[in-house]
């Protein structure tokens, strides 16, 4: 640290930053843990989908369907089952999802399904899986009305950013302690070392992922500019910025032009590349619009380069490239999305996402250990609530996630609204584990019991996948099913780690208050 920066960060500033850092962490730590953990899972959402949707384990496909008109349109007809379709879209198969995913909006409600790349509809998957449950939980908490979930997540994210910045200011000896983790001696010091280590060494990733996360939905959570220049019409802003296009139904029936020439034209405009998503708006109408998005696997930017066609004539309606600032915005968004095919980066994102969980968790634990001294034998309501939230948002969240995956393998295929039963179980078990944490917190939350539950559930998931689908690790290797194998291996590692932690915790004596009293508390 140079003399100049040392002068810039005065002891007064450092002291002033401690309060917001501490209380932002204590109050929002549980929510941030949920966001970081689900975000880490979302990096491998497709792989979790394969695990939770055994019907879609159809083996890797090299390319998408040879003909959209022959493969996709009949599947849409079948899913519509006689109802009039208003809009529909299909996500074409790729390396990570070997099936097509179709979504329809009909006059009487929505319908969706998956089909193989030659257009054969698969039986309903009966689960939301990683892509439709864990991933939306990460960015919207499944609170869609009025974007309220976006607002909550972004509020927590700004607090995270402020926490990262204030953390760097508070940390007195960043470079001297750069590599320091004293795993021996006082527990509190080990916790603080770990908190500093994950905070400082992974700081570039944490800053990047938090900022870019907000950047994606910036026009929604900070619509000041949209308010000023677009009269508050976010849709018109997106049309302008991203080159989107929409028009109302005309009410006059007209057939859809062939899709395959449109795909060929889109490829020509892109100068290569693969189509990823095909949307048909106002289907069967004279004002129908076809939108084709480009696959993102070979680039960081989230610019999907949409090409819009007239659905009746097949002529290009709009293909607009973004300006330099919007293009920058797309690159920043893409850094967060990690939609690219780059396995080393994907694993690093998972690892560092989990290191974010560690940063938040060790922060909450450190606060608990520090306050323990002030509370003595009988911790107060405040301390116990934070302890319960810390436990419920770490081991409790793991228990809920694993229980949902186990339920996914145990619930029979035919039961009505199967996916909602899974989701209900997730939330019930999560609430249950939080209540368990709150009730059982004496001098410590019930870490050991919950870690045992995590270990048993994770092991059960691996066993259940084997029993219910017949897919064991050796078969997964033989059939090159790396997605399912990867999920199973991570589950097995989780089981082993959680078991070892629970054993060690069970052997640990209760914190002795006589030694605690000796610890000088500088709060």
């Amino acid at each position, binding site marked *: 640290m140079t003399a100049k920066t040392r002068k810039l960060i005065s002891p007064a500033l450092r002291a002033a930053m401690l309060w917001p850092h501490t209380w932002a962490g204590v109050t929002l730590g549980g929510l941030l843990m949920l966001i970081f953990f689900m975000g880490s899972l979302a990096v491998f959402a497709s792989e979790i989908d394969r695990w939770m949707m055994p019907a879609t384990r159809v083996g890797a496909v090299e390319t998408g369907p040879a003909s959209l008109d022959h493969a996709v349109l009949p599947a849409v007809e079948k899913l519509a089952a006689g109802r009039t379709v208003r809009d529909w879209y299909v996500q074409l198969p790729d390396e990570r999802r070997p099936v097509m995913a179709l979504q329809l909006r009909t006059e009487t409600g929505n319908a969706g399904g998956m089909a193989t790349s030659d257009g054969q509809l698969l039986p309903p998957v009966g689960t939301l899986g990683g892509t439709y449950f864990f991933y939306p939980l990460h960015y919207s908490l499944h609170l869609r009305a009025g974007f309220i979930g976006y607002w909550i997540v972004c509020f927590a994210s700004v607090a995270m950013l402020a926490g990262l*910045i204030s953390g760097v200011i508070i940390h007195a000896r960043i470079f001297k302690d750069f590599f320091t983790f004293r795993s021996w001696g006082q527990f509190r010091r080990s916790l603080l070392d770990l908190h500093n280590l994950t905070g400082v060494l992974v700081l570039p990733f944490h800053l990047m992922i938090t900022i870019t996360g907000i950047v994606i939905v910036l026009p929604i959570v900070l619509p000041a*500019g949209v308010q*000023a220049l677009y009269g508050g019409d976010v849709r018109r802003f997106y049309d302008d910025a991203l080159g989107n296009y929409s028009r109302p139904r005309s009410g006059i029936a007209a057939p859809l032009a062939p899709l395959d020439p449109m795909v060929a034209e889109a490829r020509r405009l892109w100068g290569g590349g693969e189509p990823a998503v095909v949307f048909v708006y106002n289907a069967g109408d004279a004002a129908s619009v076809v939108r084709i998005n480009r696959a993102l696997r070979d680039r960081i930017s989230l610019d999907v380069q949409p090409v819009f066609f007239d659905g009746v004539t097949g002529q290009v309606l709009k293909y607009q490239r973004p300006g330099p600032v*919007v293009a920058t915005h797309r690159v920043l968004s893409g850094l967060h999305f990690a939609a690219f095919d780059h396995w080393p980066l994907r694993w690093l994102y998972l690892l560092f996402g989990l290191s974010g969980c560690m940063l938040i968790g060790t922060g909450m634990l450190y606060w608990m250990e520090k306050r323990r001294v002030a509370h003595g034998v009988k911790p107060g309501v405040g301390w116990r609530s934070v302890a319960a939230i810390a436990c419920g948002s770490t081991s409790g969240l793991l228990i809920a996630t694993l229980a949902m995956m186990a339920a996914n393998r145990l619930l029979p295929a035919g039961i009505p609204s199967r996916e909602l039963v899974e989701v209900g179980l997730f939330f019930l078990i999560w609430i249950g584990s939080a209540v368990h944490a709150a009730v059982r917190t004496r001098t410590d939350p019930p870490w050991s019991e919950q870690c045992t539950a995590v270990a048993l559930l994770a092991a059960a998931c691996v066993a259940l996948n084997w029993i219910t689908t017949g897919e064991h690790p050796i078969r997964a290797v033989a059939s090159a099913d790396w997605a399912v194998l990867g999920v199973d291996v991570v589950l097995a590692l989780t089981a082993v780690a959680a078991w070892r932690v629970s054993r060690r915790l069970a052997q640990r004596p209760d914190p002795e208050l006589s030694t605690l009293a000796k610890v000088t508390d500088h709060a």
Partner: protein
Amino acid sequence: MKAAGRSGRVEGRAAPPRLRTAARVTAAVFGAYGFAWGLAAFGAELGALAGMAPAEAVTASSLLALVVLPVASLWAFAVPRVTVGWAVLGGGGVLLIAASQFAGMVGP
């Protein structure tokens, strides 16, 4: 409670600590957001006046405001007097929004 205690000494014994803490937190949350809002709105209008495409101006000013937002939020805790914090963030936000309205009327 270091920050609250320290600012308490600077501000004297006029307001109870809970109220001062509440003033800090609301300044950090709402004051900073209002300031960022003003910055994004004014920046967008300014960019449009300078000839940027509207979508470009909106995106650029919003990105800038996002970077300023957490810093402004923390500054609300660092500034010795919370009244100064509120005056700069709240007042600055109102001024910037007013300026953006004015720029909107002047511009095309």
